[in-house]
């Protein structure tokens, strides 16, 4: 054991983050305050990330525990770091460090730094505490801490009506999720109230209640991660926060929810039957498809990214569902493969979603616009941001050689193992889920072609976009670092797979075969005869063929300049409205999928002959989840509130009678209790 156990370092880091938050309250109003605060966050997150990585590599199987005399007196606060927590600590602190670096530059545009700076480190501390907690009380406390800090960040610009609505929906959903988790832990702890995770682990699943615990865990973690139909808050709240916080919420906080799901289902609940994988698979697939379809229909670039987060969460849950299905059938190797894919995608999504939100933040600070219909042509004005955003788009679209491809490829390898499952239900379901995943992946590519193309290509659609300038170097540095990480993890996935192996071992009891020993850095998840992928080879091929093509074009092609109007690539008219717009790009997909997913309807208003007004095309879309599920609940609550309202205006004697009646009733219950 080293002189400084990682757990101690982690807890000191949490304390340091909290102290930073307190200090930020004092200095937050000053313009220079972002330097000390974000620098401290950067340093602390960097240290935490390094130590977590060290733990994962040096002591993969070890776990440290500590009990601090905090919280409830007879429980104390248990903290623990094991392989699962360590992996997520790496992911979260990596994202946090990148966001802090980005915040150093981006923070200069913040109009109300005193509302961001104190909560930012506290939010980071909350997420770290959730990962370190080892008893239900500490866990829920940290979870709420994280929720409330992020809520405060969502409400940074609270004078905007939309943001207030987002904050309200967010806090309602967050409270609901915490309630579900509270009940889940209550069931796990049993009648004895063994709230420490170690006790729960020993007890295993409460008999006959596995399904209920699982459903509650899915509700609780799903509402934070953004599973359909609990996702409604996410596209409202994530874009409302400042961009580096959006990146943290989308790229990192959703991962904390996934950690909680893995912790409950794979660790605390003990072995569970294969049949519980079915709801997870179905919900995951529905989330993936609906998330990316909604992303395609959005016009606000940050909302596109938020909906795409929902899609990726769906993918991760599908992989987790696969791991549950395989594990329930004792297919350990396949379970390890699916779990590796899930964890790999967790890392990847945190990287490229951070990158994309940073890019969106750069566009926002350069132009003041989030609506894609007002952007365009930014690649010429912000070449570096454009290039980095392109890297993120390629990665999230799962194109080789970037990291998105590697993890989704592993996911499909796991899906291809489904014929070996013994149950017909799974044999039929998993390929269907696979088809939905493939659809989601294709739609994601279309979505990011649209996001990048409309924002960065073409001609600027507004004055703001025309006058945009490249953003500051620190923000670019943050984006560049993340982009390089996206590329590296895509080129050498074997290293990542072996690095997450201890976590996979912890969660599923076994691990994938060692990949770093295979020649040429290929990855072979099952057998050489089945499938293998070499990111390096693909990268070298792409670089070589692209360079060769460029060389050939520059050398061989004629360099004589020709000017010809011809048909001008489709828009000879100089007006920018003749370009493809975000909505027109999405129209074909909207016509195919929008009918059932959004009840989309197009209406053409043709002026009568002789009337000089322009024709209009109006699109009506409905958010079916919101209208079908949430509005009825809201109506029900309103009706109940209306009915209970008259209780506020009773006479004194009636209030006394109510109290008296309740007292007598309770006494009767006590008297007749068996």
């Amino acid at each position, binding site marked *: 054991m080293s002189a400084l156990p990682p757990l101690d370092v982690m807890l000191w880091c949490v304390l340091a983050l909290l102290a930073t938050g307190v200090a930020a309250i004092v200095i937050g109003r000053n313009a220079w305050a972002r330097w000390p605060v974000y620098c401290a966050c950067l340093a602390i997150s960097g240290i935490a990330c390094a130590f977590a990585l060290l733990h994962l590599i040096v002591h993969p199987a070890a776990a440290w525990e500590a009990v601090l005399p905090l919280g409830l007196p007879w429980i104390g606060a248990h903290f623990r770091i094991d392989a699962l927590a360590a992996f997520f600590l790496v992911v979260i602190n990596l994202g946090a460090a990148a966001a802090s670096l980005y915040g150093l530059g981006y923070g200069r545009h913040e109009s109300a730094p005193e509302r961001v700076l104190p909560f930012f480190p506290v939010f980071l501390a909350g997420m770290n505490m959730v990962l370190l907690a080892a008893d239900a009380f500490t866990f829920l406390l940290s979870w709420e801490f994280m929720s409330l800090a992020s809520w405060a960040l969502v409400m940074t610009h609270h004078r905007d009506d939309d943001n207030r609505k987002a904050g309200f929906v967010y806090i309602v959903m967050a409270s609901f999720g915490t309630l579900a988790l509270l009940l889940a832990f209550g069931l796990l702890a049993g009648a004895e109230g063994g709230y420490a995770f170690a006790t729960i682990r020993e007890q295993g699943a409460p008999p006959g209640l596995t399904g209920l615990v699982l459903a509650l865990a899915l509700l609780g973690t799903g509402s934070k991660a953004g599973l359909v139909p609990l996702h409604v808050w996410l596209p409202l709240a994530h874009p409302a926060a400042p961009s580096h916080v959006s990146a943290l919420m989308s790229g990192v906080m959703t991962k904390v929810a996934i950690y909680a799901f893995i912790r409950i289902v794979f660790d605390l609940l003990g072995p569970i039957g294969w049949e519980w994988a079915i709801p997870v698979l179905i919900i995951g697939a529905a989330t993936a498809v609906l998330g990316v379809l909604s992303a395609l229909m959005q016009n606000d670039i940050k909302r596109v990214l938020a909906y795409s987060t929902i899609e990726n969460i769906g993918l991760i849950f599908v992989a987790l569902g696969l791991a549950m299905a395989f594990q329930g059938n004792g297919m350990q190797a396949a379970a390890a493969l699916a779990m590796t894919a899930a964890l790999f995608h967790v890392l990847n999504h945190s990287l490229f979603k951070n990158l994309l939100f940073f890019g969106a933040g750069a566009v926002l600070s350069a132009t003041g616009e989030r609506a894609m219909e007002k952007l365009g042509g930014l690649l010429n004005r912000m070449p570096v941001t454009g290039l980095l955003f392109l890297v993120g788009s390629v990665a999230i679209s799962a194109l080789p050689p970037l990291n998105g491809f590697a993890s989704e490829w592993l996911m499909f390898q796991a899906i291809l193992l489904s014929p070996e499952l013994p149950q017909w239900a799974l044999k039929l379901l998993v390929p269907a889920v696979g088809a939905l995943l493939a659809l989601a992946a294709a739609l994601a590519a279309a979505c990011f072609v649209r996001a990048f193309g409309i924002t960065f290509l073409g001609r600027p659609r507004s004055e703001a976009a025309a006058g945009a300038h490249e953003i500051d170097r620190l923000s670019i540095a943050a984006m560049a670092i993340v982009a390089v990480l996206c590329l590296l993890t895509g080129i050498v996935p074997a290293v990542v797979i072996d690095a997450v192996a201890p976590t996979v071992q912890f969660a599923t009891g076994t691990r994938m075969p060692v990949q770093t020993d295979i020649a040429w850095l290929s990855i072979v998840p099952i057998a050489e005869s089945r499938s293998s992928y070499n990111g390096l080879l693909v990268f070298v091929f792409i670089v070589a063929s692209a360079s060769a093509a460029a060389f050939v074009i520059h050398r061989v092609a004629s360099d004589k300049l020709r000017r010809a109007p011809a048909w001008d690539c489709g828009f000879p008219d100089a007006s920018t409205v003749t370009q493809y717009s975000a909505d027109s790009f999405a129209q074909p997909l909207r016509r195919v999928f929008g009918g059932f997913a959004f009840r989309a309807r197009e209406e053409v208003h043709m002026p009568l002959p002789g009337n000089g007004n322009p024709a209009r095309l109006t699109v009506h879309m409905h958010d079916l989840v919101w209208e079908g599920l949430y509005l009825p609940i809201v109506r029900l609550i309103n009706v109940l509130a209306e009915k209970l309202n008259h209780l506020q*205006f009773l*006479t*004194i*004697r009636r209030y*006394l*009678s109510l*109290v*008296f009646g309740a*007292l*007598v009733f309770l*006494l*009767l219950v*006590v*008297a007749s209790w068996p």
Partner: protein
Amino acid sequence: MNNLAFDIAHLLAGGLVLISLMLLYQDRLTSLLNAFALQAFVLSLSVAWQAYVQNAPHLYLTAGIALSVKAVIIPLALRRIIRRLGIHREIETAINVGPTMLAGLGLIALSMVVVLRVTSEADMLAREDLAFALSVVLLGLLMMVTRRNAVSQVVGFMSLENGLILAATGAKGMPFVVEISVAFSVLIAFIVIGIFLFRIRERFDSVDLEAMDEFRGEAH
């Protein structure tokens, strides 16, 4: 000796319950106050007996407070109030006496069942005491619910509080501070309600709480 102690404590506590029942069917305010004074007197006897049995001299002080404040000062003051308000001849009940008495008997049975079931391991004296005390509390509450007049509600509240003191002195080792504070809180409540009564009277020419409901436009 021990048996005698138990019997006398039992007798006094039972007397309290009996007087609570008497309170329920008094339909004239003057006789209601008389009954209340009697209850406070029995309470002070009971507390004094507990002080003797438990060998706890500070309980004598509680008994003294009960005797002087609740049996003498408060009834006299309330009597003055109702005379000044001119309502000492009024008759009022919200529910008929018969059902009220039946409900009262039911409540006594309920509190016996509850306390005797729940405290099967405690010692006999404390159990009986608690059962009676709970009966007195519930009967006081019943009185507050069934009466309309503010004065009778005050009496109901103080009778409820008598039940609390009975419970507190029945249990050994109740800190004295608590009793003092309870007694004083009742005194303060009495003062506040007294002032309140005059206010109500000034404004509505009645101490009937229904008048306030009418004022809010919610008379039924």
